[in-house]
């Protein structure tokens, strides 16, 4: 597989994240020139992308993607998930370990890596399981995964919580040897068991759905923050969903503790009110929360308490959602809509959001790449940096259609909603991986 494009690529007249207008010359996998007048010096055979009116951002990095391969290729494959990721503006995704079999060995991690390379549309970086079989008891082969060709640095039992404090402590200590980070799905199983599927509050009380109280997340995050302090190791908090967790994170960051956190697009916009019709499209873990939590999450993303936006893209075959709410699978797709949701919520907004495009680049590219330790991703659009670029039409209004997707799955909570912002092109190391 060639990683270089045959021809140089000239991105003409883009608005850069800092708001200035300029050209980008991309060749041989790198950014070769930026600014005005690049146009004139470009090679004659350069392919031209007219980016007039478009915003250029560094390629997006998703810390939290479920690609379902191996095991559930009817819901998604590495190839289809990669295609969806490219369409969403991503140049790298971290593939969660809860496949079948679980990514808990070097061989399993290398297999996912190789499937990603074969697809060749985004860098697919495997996440390794923390514990064998995600069972929460015995450590997975963390070191062998780290030493493998996949060079795993992010470990997570996502889908399940590393609930045992002793296991979490040992995992944190162990991964220090190779600069690893444990990404925790914070859900105390004694407070929110496997049936818990609706934010515990008035809505769950009225609907008679098993409650998933915010405190089940907050107590685990508080514990893990103290374990990070005790071990000096890095904890990353997956899909933060409550204002209480934000408070804990704010305290941890004020102490300078090595704790990072992500929020999903859906927790930035959708609320528990969506559950009134018992539509399992809105069944997700952690659950959608009330508007007060949504507001706190937006504020935390704006002030840096939450470092990154991650999709938790969770494709499901149709028949796994065609059940009563409590019996249906958890999760929603998100790769293709994440940027538009962030744009709608944080940039455009009814009153104008708190974000500039440089902030979007920070939370969707630079920070996630740094957290995951991906050296060739999340870099600024500057000379000598990798040519990973996404072009966004910031004012395009798009009505989401769940059937207009590259994913194999249709469990799309944004179907029928209008979002502002559309990905027009994605470039991975100088090669166009998506264009419309």
């Amino acid at each position: 597989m060639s990683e270089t494009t045959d021809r140089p690529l000239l991105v003409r007249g883009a608005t850069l994240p800092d708001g200035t207008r300029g050209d980008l010359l991309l060749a041989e996998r790198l950014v070769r020139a930026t600014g005005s007048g690049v146009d004139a010096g470009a090679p004659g055979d350069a392919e031209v992308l007219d980016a007039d009116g478009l915003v250029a951002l560094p390629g997006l990095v998703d810390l939290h993607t479920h690609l379902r391969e191996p095991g559930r290729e009817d819901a998604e494959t590495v190839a289809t998930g990669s295609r969806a990721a490219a369409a969403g503006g991503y140049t790298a995704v971290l593939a969660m370990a809860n496949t079948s079999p679980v990514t808990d060995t070097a061989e399993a991690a290398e297999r996912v890596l190789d499937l990603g390379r074969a697809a060749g549309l985004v860098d697919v970086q495997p996440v390794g399981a923390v514990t064998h079989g995600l069972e929460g008891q015995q450590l997975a082969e963390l070191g062998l995964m780290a030493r493998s060709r996949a060079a795993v640095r992010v470990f997570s039992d996502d889908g399940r919580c590393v609930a045992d404090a002793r296991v979490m402590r040992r995992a944190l200590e162990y991964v220090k040897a190779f600069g690893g980070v444990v990404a925790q799905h914070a859900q105390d199983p004694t407070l929110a068991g496997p049936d818990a599927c609706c934010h515990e509050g008035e809505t769950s009380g009225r609907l008679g759905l098993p409650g998933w109280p915010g405190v089940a997340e907050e107590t685990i995050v508080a514990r893990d923050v103290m374990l990070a302090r005790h071990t000096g190791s890095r904890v990353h908090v997956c899909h933060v969903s409550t204002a209480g967790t934000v408070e804990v994170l704010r305290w941890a960051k004020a102490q300078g503790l090595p704790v990072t956190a992500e929020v999903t697009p859906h927790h930035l916009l959708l609320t528990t009110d969506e559950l009134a019709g018992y539509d399992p499209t809105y069944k997700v873990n952690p659950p959608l929360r009330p508007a007060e939590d949504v507001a706190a999450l937006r504020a935390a993303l704006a002030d840096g308490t939450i470092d990154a936006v991650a999709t938790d893209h969770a494709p499901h075959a149709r028949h796994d959602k065609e059940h009563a709410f409590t019996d249906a699978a958890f999760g929603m797709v998100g790769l293709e809509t994440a940027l538009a949701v962030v744009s709608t919520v944080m940039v455009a907004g009814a009153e104008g959001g708190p974000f500039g495009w440089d902030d979007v680049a920070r939370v969707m590219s630079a920070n996630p790449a740094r957290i995951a330790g991906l050296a060739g991703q999340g870099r600024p659009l500057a000379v000598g940096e990798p040519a990973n670029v996404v072009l966004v039409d910031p004012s395009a209004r798009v009505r989401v259609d769940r059937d207009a997707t590259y994913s194999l799955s249709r469990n799309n909570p944004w179907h029928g909603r209008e979002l502002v912002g559309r990905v027009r092109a994605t470039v991975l190391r100088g090669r166009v991986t998506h264009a419309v």
Partner: protein
Amino acid sequence: MRRHLLSVDDLTTDDVAVLFATAAEMHDVQRRAVKKLPALRGRTVINLFFEDSTRTRSSFEIAGKWLSADTINITGKGSSASKGESLRDTVLTIAAMGVDALVVRHGASGAAQRISEWVDASVVNAGDGTHEHPTQALLDAYTLTRRLGDLADRHVVLVGDLTHSRVFRSNVRLLTRLGARVTVVAPPTLMPSGVEAWAKQDGFATSWDLDAALPHADAVMMLRVQRERMSGGFFPTAREYTVGYGLTRDRLALLGDEVPVLHPGPMNRGLEIAADAADAAQSMVLDQVSAGVAVRMSVLYHLLAGEEPA
């Protein structure tokens, strides 16, 4: 009336009045030697029960039969998910046989609503998880109305495991709609999440103190408490529950012998209701069962035969 009965919220107060009037007529039919009416001849009603139930299923079955509908029971324990079939496939398979009404009992809240989105038949919710059981609330309100007359400003006290009770959820919605003053009583661990906000919005009262609520009651409805709840830490022992929240002989005396006592069954005698209370002259338990058939006949009739009087 709407095409389905999924929630008490599907009914206007006019609908309820019509249902009760028809139920009264049906109730008279129950006392005849020959009980069959031809109203639903040629119609097919399937009782689709994914969860064990003897009384509700029999009640619907008799209701359908007395209206001359062809009534078939399909029972299957556990969710369709555990059998590898989607609920939609299960339901479409049954609906494809040619069904006019599906009476659905399912262990998951919202199941009847999901099913109603997939089929053309009328769907009657015969209990969905811990959400609603609208025909139970209708028969309870019907029973109370026959005993007390208009329920406006009458004070009804509901006691028991409210968190896990669909009977509570349907009853509180319907009784407040009919103008009754409702107080719901349970220990804090068996109160539904967010009930304070809900109570404020819908206009009912909550209490942890049964003895404070009882002296002002015009009717008392005891709800079943499952002994398994003790292992979930909802209350320490059966004995302690009974002392705090059971309708004991002493509390029955406190009530006086005019106040009707209801229980949707099955009763845990000695836990939430003493034998003396269950068997007291003021106990409406068997009246509720008999009213259940009449109310379900009325519901099936109005969903399937149209609005004309019988």
